């Protein structure tokens, strides 16, 4: 857009204000997490790292972090293992009704999570899969596989199918073409799909509320249960840890593989 110096300053100011608006809650949480009070307040009046010590001293949080880490890792792995072949089939195998199938794969994203959670509860309760790792992971797969399929499909759309044909004419069978030609080309999409799946699973609250219980409690559910009865800076400290984890993961992918590129083409 064509503007003078004054106009440009106005645009920049607008962006700064918007950015502050988006970041404000996180800044508040960050500041509060260093407060020395036993309840949440703003602005804080002291400074201490006690809140962070409390987080890691709390058994509920420790086990919840473990549950979430295990769940998110296995979910991400399974989402990639199933999502990549699905994306390959959707992009490279011609069959009747392929487009319908493609939209069907994305449809879980359109169902409100609360509906999905309720449905899973009804489905899992009699088996019984509620309050188990298996149930939690199955539930999370339902919402993460579509993301993996989507990012991988986007990567495949950017890869030249003629290169795969060239490999075939040079003597590569279907499996070798997938391993030596397709996978290296779509690796950025696969990795970012996996990282997104991990973060989504780690972050998932609504569905987890329905299918988790006393034995297997993922972190977001543990946090909710904690703030039901208490509100001290420990929750803020935990939130800061979660934000840092997300940022580190995204920066890692962005730096090494170009997450932005693979998302943009999607």
């Amino acid at each position, binding site marked *: 857009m064509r503007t003078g110096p004054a106009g440009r300053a106005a645009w920049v100011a607008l962006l700064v204000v918007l950015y502050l608006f988006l970041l404000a809650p996180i800044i508040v949480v960050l500041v509060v997490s260093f407060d020395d009070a036993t309840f949440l307040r703003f602005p804080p009046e002291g400074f201490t790292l006690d809140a962070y010590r409390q987080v890691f001293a709390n058994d509920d949080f420790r086990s919840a972090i473990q549950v979430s880490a295990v769940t998110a890792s296995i979910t991400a792995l399974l989402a990639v293992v199933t999502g990549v072949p699905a994306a390959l089939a959707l992009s490279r195998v011609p069959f009747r009704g392929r487009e319908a199938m493609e939209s069907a794969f994305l449809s879980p994203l359109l169902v409100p999570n609360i509906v999905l959670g309720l449905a899973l509860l009804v489905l899992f309760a009699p088996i019984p899969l509620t309050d188990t790792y298996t149930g939690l992971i199955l539930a999370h797969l339902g919402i993460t596989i579509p993301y993996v399929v989507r990012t991988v499909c986007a990567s495949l759309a950017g890869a030249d199918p003629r*290169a795969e*044909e*060239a490999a*075939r*004419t*040079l*003597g*590569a069978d279907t499996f070798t073409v997938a391993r030596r030609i397709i996978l290296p080309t779509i690796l950025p999409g696969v990795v970012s799909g996996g990282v997104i799946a991990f973060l989504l699973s780690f972050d998932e609250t609504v569905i987890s509320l329905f299918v988790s219980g006393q034995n297997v409690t993922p972190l977001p559910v543990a946090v909710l249960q904690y703030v039901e009865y208490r509100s001290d800076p420990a929750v803020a400290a935990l939130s800061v840890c979660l934000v840092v984890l997300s940022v580190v993961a995204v920066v890692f992918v962005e730096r090494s593989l170009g997450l932005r590129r693979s998302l943009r083409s999607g």
Partner: protein
Amino acid sequence: MTDPTTGVPSPTAAGAGAAGAPAADEGHLVLRDLVKTYPGRHGAAVRGVSLSVPRGAMLAVLGPSGCGKSTTLRMIAGLVAPSAGSVLVDGKDVTGTPAHHRDMGVVFQSYALFPHMDVAGNVAFGLEMRKVPRPERERRVTEALELVRLDHLARRRVSQLSGGQQQRVALARALVVRPTVLLLDEPLSNLDAQLRTTMREEIRRIQQETGITTVFVTHDQHEALSMADRVAVLHEGRLEQLGTPQEIYERPASRFTAEFVGRANLLPATVVAAASAGEAAAAEVEVPGIGRITAQGASPAPGEPVTVLLRPHRVVLDAHDPDGGIARGTVLTAGYTGETVAYRVRVGGSGPELDVELPSGSHRPSAPGAEVGVSWQQGAARLVPAAPRSGGDAEAADGGGPAGDRDPRGGAA
């Protein structure tokens, strides 16, 4: 290596998809009645193509876009399964053999290099698939890169290469495995004009050095005529003609070939009498507006309609003696193109219009309106089989038959 390749006894038979000509079986690569239909699409993409390529020869498959030439190439490579017909290599039927067992080198129009590998990695891929041990692999990769004059760029990423260099990598990658047949799909169409001429010679040199049987697909007649030993003209999924570049250009077997390859004046005429038969067959024909002329080629019985082909550069205009030629004409337009002057001339008072091309500098240009004598050398006029091939062809339909064709101009697009 001439005779077995002319293969198809008569173009009419080939066009109608006559069951594989017996002579064709002697070729290194043989196509027999290849057909490809796509479900849900009207008509077939390829409608019965039979041809044969002798060992070490280079065949150009020439035709406009949508004529089925790429599909034919992909069927040879095994990337598309034919609906009917067969592909034979060394007399062995490979129709059911999957692409990765066919041992054919393919160069794609988009080059289709592997973007995550460097130049040497791309070239080595086929050797890895064949489990060639590393020392030999490295030696052959170097040799192949030397052949295409890229040995200094072995460690370059393919994204850093120019179009011409990518093209050479694709060629080296296909050749390094010493395939039985080399297939090139529009290999030069993504290059700029100058590079195209260089690569044309380069590909021809490499093909002759390696002696590999080669099929390349193109829509460019210059490419086909200048590079190939044999040209197959494809039109609407059918083989129109198979022959040497000279045969294709000088003795086209159909109106389509005459118009598609080179520029052409096509004049409707009627046979008066066959002048001679056999190799030097010729006939006396009556061309409305011009009169009786002699034309080369086998003719149908007297009274039958035929089409006479007259290439623009073989017609001569004489401004000094308008009545001294075969016919008298009036210049309608004259266009200077540098190397030639292109005229449009009406023959007689209301006769056909002819495109004429004279070398510039060889004559004093005539202005529009000038009266000129129109003539041509003995043998310049050629009979083109006029009867439409088995029904429903576009050309047969659009002119309403050559005899009724009011506008004989042949301006090939």
